[in-house]
């Protein structure tokens, strides 16, 4: 019984927090003031000479992040090779 009361209170508190968060989100289609998006959209073609702004972010403005992704893939391949390499085919 004590646990049931505790769960009800917990659900109410968490639900209230979620409701508040959902209520505070900006309306759909109006992202508000986002200067970074505007910078990328207006400067990518002039600075980097590229039409695809998404690619310019992924491979240029955040190139170091993509290097990390490539390293993650390399690590995954290494671990799979270490795990599945049986006694044959060294």
């Amino acid at each position, binding site marked *: 019984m004590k646990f049931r009361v505790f769960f009800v209170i917990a659900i109410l508190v968490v639900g209230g927090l979620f409701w508040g968060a959902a209520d505070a989100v900006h309306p759909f289609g109006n992202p508000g003031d986002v200067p970074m998006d505007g910078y990328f959209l207006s400067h990518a073609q002039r600075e980097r000479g590229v039409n695809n702004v998404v*690619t310019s972010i992924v491979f240029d403005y955040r190139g170091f992040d993509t290097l990390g992704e490539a390293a993650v893939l390399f690590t995954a391949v290494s671990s799979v090779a270490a795990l599945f390499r049986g006694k044959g085919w060294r």
Partner: protein
Amino acid sequence: MRPLSVIVRTVCNAFAWFVAVFGVYVIVHGHLSPGGGFQGGAVVATFMALLLVSHGATKCLGWVRTNFFYAFEHVGLLTFIAAGFLGIGVTFFYNSLALSGGLFGSAVPLGPNGGSLNTSGTIALMNCAVGIEVVGGLSMILLYMMQGVFHVDKPTLRGKEEAGHDR
């Protein structure tokens, strides 16, 4: 794992090449259209997956060399890092080739335009490098998993045919 029926094998034989060509298109046009190195590389790695599934692990593993894909992955990753070091005069990952007039150095007109392959500097270079790396990496994952799960002993199976097929 035994191969699938002759219908599946024929269809996979034909369509694997189309899939590979489409993946190369996605990689090369990564700076103009949606997609890029990672996505196109995954599409090209489907080539290996189709062959492995349709022909069976035992037969297919006798056709390929893992060292080939091993070299692909290392060359791709090293080319990516080297492309990052091209602009080390300013910062790491500075796009020094863009708008320089040389390789991938054309300027693009501002606003919507048709696009040209010879733009975007090191971005196109990195797309190709990451594409090569993903092709090698995912193909190696497929080959190693097939070999490990079905306990295929590679050196003994060159040129051997399997009897019967599944489904």
